[in-house]
């Protein structure tokens, strides 16, 4: 086994974004099998962090930095992977567009959800805070996402989650995407009321939810 895979794994476990990029560039430059780099390097690393998180040994900065390093390295490999280079094929577990709804600037919870989804193997497109329904949908269309995930922390902006579902309905796009929602004041009942496909109280549950929806 090429020793670089072990190095990539360690870079992810250490949450070392710069090193992850450097190693990914080396993979591309030296024509190393990118699928193996992903499977034996990046995914091995993030799985190790994920296991430590589940057992309570790792904390948020560990997971979030590992997710950032993973994302940065994978971005470098994106082109060669898309070109189908390497043995077999690598596919992410599914693409998810994530953002905080219009009028709301709370983003800590959203960022945590994004990191845990990334570490579970999903490809997350984080469109940021204060985002309109159109913005969620445009991004989902652009990247071919299956799930749209909307966060809201204010009782006054929860209705933007409803607007998102209504917008999809109006555009006759409702069947194309699964919509999931979350954030402090939201609830399972609210999710049902607005016709979302799922709600989760915590980031861990959000991961389970996405697995279920795409499983």
């Amino acid at each position: 086994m090429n020793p670089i895979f072990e190095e990539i794994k360690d870079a992810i476990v250490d949450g070392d974004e710069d090193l992850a990029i450097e190693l990914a560039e080396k993979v591309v430059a030296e024509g190393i099998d990118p699928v193996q780099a992903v499977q034996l390097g990046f995914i091995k690393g993030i799985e190790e962090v994920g296991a430590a998180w589940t057992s309570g040994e790792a904390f948020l900065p560990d997971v979030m930095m590992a997710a950032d390093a993973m994302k940065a390295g994978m971005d470098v490999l994106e082109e060669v992977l898309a070109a189908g280079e390497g043995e077999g094929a690598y596919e992410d577990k599914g693409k998810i567009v994530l953002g905080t709804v219009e009028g709301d600037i709370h983003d800590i919870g959203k960022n945590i959800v994004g990191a845990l989804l990334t570490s579970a193997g999903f490809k997350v497109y984080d469109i940021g805070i204060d985002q309109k329904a159109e913005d969620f949908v445009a991004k989902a269309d652009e990247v071919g996402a299956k799930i749209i995930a909307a966060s809201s922390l204010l009782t006054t902006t929860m209705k933007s989650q409803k607007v998102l579902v209504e917008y999809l309905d109006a555009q006759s796009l409702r069947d194309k995407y699964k919509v999931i929602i979350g954030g402090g004041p939201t609830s399972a009942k609210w999710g049902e009321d607005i016709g979302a496909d799922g709600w989760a109280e915590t980031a861990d549950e959000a991961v389970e939810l996405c697995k279920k929806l795409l499983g």
Partner: protein
Amino acid sequence: MLPKFDVLTDEQINKIHKNSLKILQEIGVEFSYDPAIEVFKKHGQRVEGHRVFLDPDFVENMVEKAPAQFTLHARNPEHNLVCGGENIIYMPGYGAPFVYDADGGKRDATMADYDNFVKLAGASKNMHMTGGTVVEPTDVEDEIRHLKMAYSHIINSDKCFMGSSSGYEHARDSIELTAVLHGGLDVIKEKPALICLVNSVTPLKYDDRMLGGLMAYAEAGQPMVIASLVMAGSTGPATLAGAMSLQNAEVLAGITLTQCINSGTPVVYGCTSAVTDMSTGSLSIGNPENALFVSASAQFARFYGVPCRGGGGLTDAKTVDAQAGYESMMTLFAASTTGVNFVMHTAGILQYYMAMSYEKFMVDDEIAGMVLRYLKGFDTESDEKMAYDVIETVGPGGHFLTQKHTRKNFKTEFFRPALSDRQSFDGWSKDSLDTNQRAKLKWQEVLANYTPPELDPAVKEKVEAFIEKRSKELLK
């Protein structure tokens, strides 16, 4: 009042102060609201886009202009409050979207809950005002929520209350409504009667809505709390000194803006900083770090010569259990004994500001009573209080239970619990009620017996007319 104790040395204060000024000068603060940018430009501060870089001397001079204390006027002058100096003001929790019930149930807060909490605060001798946004009444359209909430405070109690700060328009409504209650905008400009909460967006930002609110209150000469909530470890550094420097920079920037708009506007230095739970990312408030941030903030407020807001009956617990009790006692006690003047969230909060609980309100009310008694300290003024004579009368071996001195003094010297159980085991075990269950009976009793103080019908009519007119306009 007892002397307040410090948690920072003068040298530490200085170091953090300098660190904050450096942040303001070299990193700067983002103000998204154009009118605020204009104000800073007019005062000769360096502006790049929406980022403002503040000159240290300018900041110090501006903060200097804020008064050390001010009086907040209630519709009943007996409830006027001095904010600052040795005084402490308690009120209910602020902003929670949920109500948690005694049996562990969770539900959306409603306007009926709102009225109830205002009444409980009105009835309590430990709550000096009825607060603001005591819960988020989710059954009222948000366009007119601020009007309904203000009405509840006006009608259900004659104590001071807080107004909306969410955008210029809502802030202006709250101010004008308060003016109707007090007899005109010029009356409340002279005698401030409404206070609001303005929050920075940590790290180093102020958003449109809050700045709109800030400008409305500053223009009308109404006081405001300028607060920063640094979640150490997520929205701020994980070190206490770093988080405190950041919070301090943000609050100083906000105070500076208020004084630029209207020199001498009363402001309160606000702190809600706490830590991030690194296993879930959630805010955690029932802890020693929070207590330290609050105590340090009280010291900074003294250093800058302004009143301080911080602390409360703060907890991460989801029900009224031992955790709720010990965390709340720590945070309220720390705030109160280190010199905080304005304590939002004194009573009712569960789970890091997410919920209000009636039972928790009663527990915190009890804690508040205990702390207020503690703050009174020892009275050594008179011979009567020194009690030499009665000690002489009883002499060695006697007892004091039948002395006039005892009967006269115990009522004022001893704290009398309203909720705590001091019975024998047998007495207690007749019903075996725990604190949560007793608190439930207690708040129901208080509400059942509460009669809101009457409001002059002529004034009431004007208040209602204003609300009706504005509601129509806003719901159009």
